[in-house]
């Protein structure tokens, strides 16, 4: 298992370190795993190193979601602030630090997105009021989707490896189970049963808490 986790940073691929001078840095600087360890231990320098290496990837996601500007900058900033203040929640069984940061960024993006949608709907509702049109046409569908999204992201954050890595490759990189097996070196049958169990777990979470949210 530790072998699997060791190769994961390269295989997950989605979070490639930003390192324009690798030759110089490798001699004196900790590798990504070490940065993760120090980050979890509260070493301030590790936060700066994590920012150097992965802020570009995180900000790239934020800009893709919201375009360049204050919303994207907020997402990037909040991702690192939350990751730092919540660093106790990061352990090596969560996988490499950059993947964990991406998970935090997804939460922030979902937050910001939901906020934007809410504002948009309020504006629309205000306009509909002004025009005396029947309100509430679109709101309930959107609300349940947003609620589901938060629950799924939250549940994903609770998964250990390799379950989390597997389902993230399926969800966020759109790989088939065969491609996931290929990428990770995990046997096909194991990938399939992890996918099955994770989807069941997510379904249960949605059925229990999703229902409660709407009650």
């Amino acid at each position: 298992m530790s072998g699997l986790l060791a190769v994961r940073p390269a295989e997950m691929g989605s979070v490639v370190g930003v390192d324009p001078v690798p030759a110089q840095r490798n001699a004196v600087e900790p590798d990504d795993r070490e940065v993760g360890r120090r980050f979890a231990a509260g070493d301030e320098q590790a936060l700066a190193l994590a920012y150097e290496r992965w802020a570009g990837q995180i900000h790239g996601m934020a800009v893709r979601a919201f375009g360049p500007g204050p919303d994207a900058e907020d997402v990037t900033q909040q991702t690192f602030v939350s990751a730092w203040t919540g660093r106790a929640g990061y352990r090596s069984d969560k996988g490499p630090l950059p993947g964990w940061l991406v998970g935090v960024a997804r939460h922030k993006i979902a937050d910001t997105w939901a906020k934007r949608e809410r504002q948009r709907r309020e504006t629309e509702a205000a306009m509909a009021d002004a025009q005396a049109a029947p309100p509430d046409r679109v709101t309930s569908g959107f609300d349940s989707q947003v609620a589901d999204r938060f629950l799924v992201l939250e549940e994903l954050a609770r998964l250990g490896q390799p379950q989390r890595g597997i389902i993230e490759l399926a969800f966020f990189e759109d790989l088939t189970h065969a491609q996931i097996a290929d990428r990770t070196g995990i046997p096909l049958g194991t990938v399939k049963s992890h996918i099955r169990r994770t989807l069941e777990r997510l379904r249960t979470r949605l059925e229990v808490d999703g229902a409660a949210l709407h009650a």
Partner: protein
Amino acid sequence: MQHCTPEQLALAALREPLPADDADHLAGCEQCRTEVISLQRAVDAVAVPQLAAPGAPVAPPPGVWAGIAAATGVSATPRTDVARQAPAAEEPAQPAAEVVPFRSRRRPLLLVAAAVVAGAALGAGAVAVVQSQDGGEPVTAVALDPWPTTRPPVARRSSSSPTVRGWSRSTSTRPSWRTATTRSG
């Protein structure tokens, strides 16, 4: 035939194509389809491009770190030269080449834009070559080419990625942003 296995139904929930037997059964079996739909709720909740795996890095402006430092009270500072160079990492100087296709198909518009830029740059390079050869100085042509040998993967990626590795599994039923990607390829 018997019902599909739980594993197959999970794959169906992810919209992977099933073997013909399973697909036929699923099409006609209310019980199996209900199971797929119930598993699909989680899949669909996060199937939005905003949450897809990271693509091209973008260097955040300096104020972002300032905000982080202020909020956390951390006094260590990242080297700004490194952060500022982040966009350069779009070029796979690291062994990222094999993962690029999976990422890129999530970003059809960005890739189209990248391809356009690449094409424009290549075009400009070609013009530069022609012009410099007119001047009888072919060595200059190399220097003028704005798209050195490491760059072509950007253009290649964008044209090939939509068909790479199983993308077809989502042609029919994925949310529209995904099918749009397929069509764009």
